[in-house]
């Protein structure tokens, strides 16, 4: 079991070990926010338990278009900062001389990637990536962004299991928004499973328990059909 640390807790005396979620003052390493302590001989970091999503470049995110401008879209990525998606970052092959608001309009959801974030926290998105696309079908589920790594699982184990067991498409945004698409009843099972993962994010053998849960639900579905 990992120790819960609070802001200001002394967690190491070697400033070179300081990792994510820590700060160094007078050669000592302190925790920066509430989280779980992950300490090895060479490094120490704090895994957050809560908190808002802060964009970092390369993250896959799901966002909602909030405003259309002449040269791009302002996208809400559920973080303290709004993101900007320039028209030039929209996949070219899909443009076909359409106007900006014909490509994406207010309220449309997209899967994008964070291209860059500058020190002033101006976030730029891109859609020139194979996972990126406008979302026109399916369902979006929102969870606490600190729980996203659990939904993905060890080397993607959890997400792979969900996809293969249910035969649906899932894209997990680092900002805590998850897009699910496929058979409606199966999507509902996946949604329920994701909420369970969020709730029990730090319990043992979660992947196995979720597998069991999905098998049970799938069984119920098949029984109802016959």
């Amino acid at each position: 079991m990992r120790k819960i640390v609070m802001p200001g807790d002394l967690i190491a005396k070697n400033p070179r070990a300081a990792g994510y979620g820590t700060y160094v003052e007078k050669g000592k390493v302190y925790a920066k926010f509430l989280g779980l302590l992950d300490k090895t001989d060479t490094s120490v970091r704090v895994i957050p338990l809560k908190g808002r999503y802060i964009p970092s470049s390369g993250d896959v995110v799901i966002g909602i278009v909030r405003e259309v401008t002449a040269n791009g879209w302002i996208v809400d990525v559920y973080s303290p900062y709004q993101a900007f998606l320039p028209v030039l970052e929209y996949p070219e092959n899909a443009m076909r001389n359409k106007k900006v608001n014909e490509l994406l309009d207010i309220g449309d959801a997209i899967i994008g990637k964070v291209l860059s974030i500058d020190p002033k926290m101006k976030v730029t998105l891109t859609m020139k990536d194979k996972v990126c696309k406008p979302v026109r079908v399916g369902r979006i589920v929102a969870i606490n962004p600190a729980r996203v790594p659990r939904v993905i699982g060890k080397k993607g184990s959890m997400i792979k299991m969900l996809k293969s067991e249910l035969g649906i498409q899932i894209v997990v945004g680092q900002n805590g928004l998850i897009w699910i698409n496929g058979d409606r009843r199966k999507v509902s099972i996946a949604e329920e499973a994701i909420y369970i993962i969020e709730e029990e994010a730090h319990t043992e053998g979660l992947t196995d328990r979720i597998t069991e849960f999905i098998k049970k639900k799938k069984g119920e579905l098949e029984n109802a059909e016959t």
Partner: protein
Amino acid sequence: MQKPKLIVDGKRLDGRGFEELRPIKIEAGVLKRADGSCYLEMGKNKIIAAVYGPREVHPRHLQDPSKAVIRYRYNMAPFSVEERKKPGPDRRSVEISKVSREALEPVIMKELFPRSGIDVFVEVLQADAGTRTACLNAASVALIDAGVAMRGMVTSVAVAKVEGNIVLDPMKEEDNYGDADVPIAFLIRNDRIESIALLQMDGRLTLEEMKKAMELAKKGAMQIYRLQREAIMKKYMKEETEEPEEENEQ
């Protein structure tokens, strides 16, 4: 109204000794829609605190491109005192909001969230002296519960001079009829008092009395600090049993 006798046989009106706190109850994470929240009872004080953010700041001109802005709203419910209080901010609550915000500002790592804002709302549901200290304690727990990056914890307690004695954590009668009331807030890091985040004084103390008051406040603050930690631990202990698996890309 005639001034009542506040200290009888070395005991205070509610039977406490001079260096004793009122009973304290703290619960973290009581509001579902807030990012962080806390309910706190300190004697007859009842406080609820909510933290939202970091989030976008509106109106836009308040944004600071180099750091987050902190907004702190201290408010007393109309029913929190014996005589109905006119709702809305007044001179007193605006001042308390300001000094409390200034106590929290150096503790929060504002520079990590440029252009954003962190909103702290504290509501006094029932008041019984020392509400600003109780509010700061509640706000501090709510901030940690929200996962906001901070340098440590803010813990606050008041000291008063009553009939020539320095007493810890005054209640209403002692505040109303006492000679001095000194609310103090500390920044506590790693079980150690690092600095003073807030100090006000209503009335007068001699240097000797002030020194004694500080000693008392430090002792009291450490007790409250442990309760604040306990409250947060309690909320997360039940969720926390096993070490999380290593995070990975899809």
